């Protein structure tokens, strides 16, 4: 059993209304050093298999198909076998 982590984030250049709101909240709390903040999604998967490359390939396929929307989102896959 391998563990995988999938990070989905909005593509650069796409306005992130949630991120902007949280950024403003941080500023109003005095955390002025924060330059930018983007919100994304984090998913943990438990998957059967031991071949790391194959698992990465399969999970990337999942990302392309459903876990992310390639029009507006980027994704990153980490697999620990």
């Amino acid at each position, binding site marked *: 059993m391998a563990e995988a982590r999938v990070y989905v984030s909005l593509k650069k250049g*796409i*306005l992130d*209304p*949630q991120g902007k709101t949280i950024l403003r909240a941080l500023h109003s709390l005095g955390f002025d050093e924060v330059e930018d903040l983007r919100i994304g999604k984090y998913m943990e998967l438990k998957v059967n298999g031991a071949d790391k490359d194959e698992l990465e390939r399969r999970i990337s396929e999942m990302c392309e198909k*459903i*876990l992310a*929307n390639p*029009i*507006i989102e980027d994704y990153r896959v980490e697999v620990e076998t």
Partner: protein
Amino acid sequence: MRFGVVVFPGSNCDHDCFYVLKEVLGQEASYVWHEDTDLSGFDCIVLPGGFSYGDYLRTGAVARFSPVMGAIEKFASSGGFVVGICNGFQILLEAGLLPGAMMRNIGLKFICRFVNIRVETNTTPWTCGAGKGQILKIPIAHNEGNYQVPYEMLEKMKRHGQIVFRYCSEEGSVLNEFNPNGAIENIAGVCNREGNILGMMPHPERASEIEMGSTDGLFIWRSILGHCGVNVSV
């Protein structure tokens, strides 16, 4: 004309669409369960609004893999008419049947109110009964109506007359202040290149009787009926 209204787990405008098509417009209408794959006999498929699969992951992301969607893809590619309203529009985007993607409203609020939209083209089957530039008063009710599409794709869509509706003022000015959700270039509705698939955020089924505060939604229903050679008296 025979309409099929698709029911996903979480659809909630299916009855409204069914009622308007059957009772107000006097057409044949039946529900299509999302696991059905037989669309034979239908002239037009309606993907209604709601919260299919609880909007989990992204709006429409799970619904687009329902068995009915494969059938709808085939139905549309052979020229069948498909309209997605609100959540239905979001599903069509996720399915890749219409270009673009939906993001959360720029103000992060669910917005439920009447808006004005301008008919940008009346050469589609969905707007042929309206005038170009005509302003329709139709309500929106959504949290994710912030339509986005890559720039090059947008330019292509404009060239092919795929921008069908834009949010505007009562007089028809398309300005940022009349954009309720941050949608790129105030876009409220788009169609595919062939014109047989329409997606729109406003709810025409909620503006199809005087009692509802507007009957402008009828322009869309009358257009598709007229396009198919059916004239109705309402």
